[in-house]
């Protein structure tokens, strides 16, 4: 068990990041690595709790607390402390299909639930996870492992985001032949075209896909299942289909002037950017440049931050990030107790970079857009923004009230909408004749992944609505389990 007194003796430390002013000159990862000795000390801070919360992914107050895939965190923290990296990797690989992704992009609900977090900064679980898997690849411990036998059953997985990949990986390990379809030219879904390469190097995704291909999984790209009847024929011949096609319908802002030019959804901006980088700066059809533009990002979440960071790399003239909610407190507010996800202010990489260029945090809180103002050519030239106040009504629910006289106009040339997603894109469920639930996600049987149609399952954002990569992995793994049961006992 870690070191009993480690948490008293050592302070939390994260690896250094590359200097913001330097890293915005490229699109490489911003996080540096830590020497083994320092990681060992961070592992020693784990208290090996009698009742750990870090590994029990539960929903508290609508937010994830603890690891949704139940990573054996205290165990590998201890193994890292003792320098047993191979064993640590073996334990990590038991529960997490892709630690190299979560180790980089997960918001780490494990750390929010870490018992040490009650009174001290929590254990650096995410960074330890990342170090374990990076070391495992470095030492060649991650090798293709073929299933011991083949069931002869064939499964189609639609969508190759984290849910689809995890599902395919598990089903393949269970002995089924798996084919993964993706509408994009490269597999990975949001891992590939949603998250920018500064956070997640795209080579890592290709490395994993190559590994899975070597293990017998077939990837079919540029193929959108469900866009028409004909595309469904591709699914014939499969014994089961798992839909992991995400919740790609972006939330829109229906205010006056929304049809002005140069207003884009964040994902279109991010996809074009990554595609151009991967294609050697050649593919410009889908590319939206922020160069020399005054950029307004609407939405204060991770995707919004990614838009800020990418705009800076395009050398935008200025950037603001509008958030409708109030600025979170520095420390947990009353009612947001441990082990809930801590709703506190975080300075993410994009904000740090904007600060280094413009000298201030790009975020503006309690702001909502009332109107997009366009010039004579129909291009957006300004935003009319109003400040809002959040009050509680009699029933205790938060209510948004516009503050009168708070109107402000921001001059902009490019607007990026990063306000989340509102469910699945309709084509696939419609073509298949699948029912959607009230939040327009694909409806499955209660407590499971089966849809109303025999042999068709749904998992990931497509089933739950937008969520974390780690929930998607969990969904993919669980759906694989259920699908496997069906295939074996049907």
């Amino acid at each position: 068990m870690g070191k009993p007194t480690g948490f008293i003796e050592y302070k939390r430390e994260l690896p250094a990041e590359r200097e913001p002013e330097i890293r915005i000159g490229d699109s490489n990862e911003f996080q540096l690595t830590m020497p083994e000795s320092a990681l060992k000390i961070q592992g020693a801070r784990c208290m090996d709790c009698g009742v750990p919360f870090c590994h029990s992914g539960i929903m508290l107050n609508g937010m994830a607390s603890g690891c949704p895939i139940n990573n054996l965190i205290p165990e590998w923290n201890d193994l890292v402390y003792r320098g047993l990296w191979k064993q640590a990797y073996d334990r990590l690989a038991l529960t997490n299909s892709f630690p190299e992704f979560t180790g980089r992009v997960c918001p780490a609900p494990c750390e929010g639930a870490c018992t040490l977090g009650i009174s001290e900064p929590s254990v650096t679980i995410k960074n330890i996870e990342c170090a374990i898997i990076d070391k495992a690849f470095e030492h060649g411990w991650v090798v293709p492992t073929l299933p011991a036998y083949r069931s002869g059953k064939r499964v189609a997985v639609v969508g190759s985001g984290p849910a689809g990949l995890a599902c395919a990986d598990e089903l393949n390990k269970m002995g089924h032949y798996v084919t993964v379809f993706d509408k994009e030219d490269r597999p990975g879904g949001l891992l590939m075209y949603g998250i920018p390469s500064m956070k997640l190097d795209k080579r890592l995704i290709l490395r994993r896909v190559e590994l899975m291909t070597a293990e017998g999984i077939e990837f079919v790209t540029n193929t959108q299942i469900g866009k028409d009847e004909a595309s469904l024929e591709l699914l014939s011949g499969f014994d089961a289909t798992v839909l992991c096609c995400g919740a790609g319908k972006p939330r829109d802002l229906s205010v006056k002037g929304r049809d002005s030019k140069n207003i884009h959804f964040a994902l279109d901006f991010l996809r074009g950017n990554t595609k151009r980088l991967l294609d050697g700066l050649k593919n410009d059809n889908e590319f939206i440049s922020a160069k020399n533009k005054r950029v307004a990002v609407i939405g204060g979440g991770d995707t919004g931050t990614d838009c800020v960071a990418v705009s800076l790399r395009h050398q935008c003239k200025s950037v603001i990030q509008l958030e409708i909610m109030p600025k979170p407190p520095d420390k947990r507010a009353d009612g947001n107790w441990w082990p809930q996800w801590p709703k506190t202010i975080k300075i993410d990489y994009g904000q740090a970079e904007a600060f280094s260029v413009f000298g201030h945090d790009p975020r503006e809180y309690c702001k909502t857009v009332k109107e997009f103002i366009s010039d004579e050519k129909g291009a957006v030239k300004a935003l009319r923004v109003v400040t809002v106040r959040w009050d509680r009504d009699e029933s205790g629910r938060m209510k948004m009230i516009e503050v009168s006289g708070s109107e402000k106009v921001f001059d902009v040339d490019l607007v990026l909408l990063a306000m989340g997603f509102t469910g699945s894109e309709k084509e696939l469920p419609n073509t298949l004749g699948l029912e959607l639930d009230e939040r327009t996600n694909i409806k499955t049987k209660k407590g499971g992944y089966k849809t109303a149609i025999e042999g068709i399952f749904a998992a990931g954002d497509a089933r739950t609505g937008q969520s974390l990569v780690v929930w998607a992995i969990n969904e993919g793994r669980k759906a694989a389990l259920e699908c496997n049961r069906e295939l074996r006992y049907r």
Partner: protein
Amino acid sequence: MVIEADGKLMTGRDVAIAALLGAQEFGFATAPLVALGCVMMRVCNLDTCPVGIATQHPGLRGKFTGKPEYVVNFMRFIATNLREWMAALGFRTVEEMTGKAKRLKMAADRGNQKASKIDLSNLLYNAADMDANGSHCITRDFLNDSLDVKKLIEAAKPALSNEAKVKASFAIRNTYRAVGTILGSELTRLFGSKGLPEDSIIFQFTGSAGQSFGAFIPKGITLKIEGDTNDYPGKGLSGGKIIIYPPKSAAFEPDKNVIAGNAAFYGATAGEGYIRGIAGERFCVRNSGANVVVEGVGDHGCEYMTGGNVVVLGETGRNFAAGMSGGTAYVFDPEEDFLGKCNKGMVELEFLDDREESETVMKMVRKHFEYTGSLLAGRILLDWNENKTKFVKVIPRHYKEMQKAIGDALKEGMSEEQAEYSAFETHIAGKAKEA
């Protein structure tokens, strides 16, 4: 007799079930601790409790955020919840519902296959049906029947009221339990924890003492017994003195025969004990400060001991010093067979070669000789210089380090408290270096 139920009582419903099964008292531990901030780390034994509950570490104690009011509040919830269940069941008082097991029934749907195989009908059988008198027991007035209330307190009056010296003799039988304990509580009530000067009250008993002879007696009380004692003599000894020796007329060899029962001086915190003869198993378990001399002990001697000095002039049973984290034991081992009987998990074995220490042990043996007339002690003292080399000193490793560090700190002029804390800090720093 009162039946107490405990074990994961968390809600008023749990209490109601326990009461219906026959419980009259209800023990809570985990839940009130959680109300105080416990996060069930299960490290109470490691001094690393991160919420400051089970720790002596000043830094960690600072993290304690609990308040007594939280426990009060929690118990109010329990009471309210219990009240709701009682109302639903139609009971006015807890007494009314005690033992009404008929009101409990097994849930028809028990969720999973394994649970459905459990049959609780024997547990839910109403014992009251077997006995028309119901679930209540008649309590005998033990306290007023005790030797203390009947004789000892009266005899000790001069000491209790005027601090005069008192000596008296009594016959004793093994139906008298915890002799001296109520007297001790009277004395403590009057004079506080410092008690009275040594030997203020000397009571001499003849016969066989029942369980817990001299339990918890404070400083100022000396109980001598010519005869033997049952289990737990000197339990929780708190400064008093207990002397046990066989009848002068006894034909047996005292150092070859058991005259004190099991768990003698269990959890003693201060005081002295002298036993001319062998004591049973678990001798001086959890002793934290008493100095005791005995002529032989059963298995598990000095288990979990944390302080005090124990001198064993004869053989020990197996597993001696298991989990012993403090204090020192000295075992006279002329046959050199102690090594195999000692549990060396936490202790080191040494010779008694420190002059000052040898002196201390000799004084204890001499007192033993004087108080009990032990011939064995006499023989050892006759050739002390030779015999002291036959003693094995048993000392816990960490205790030894800490004693040395405290000693060094005291030499630097620190107060006792400062010295203890400084030793603790040095110890922690040392551990950090190891890593």
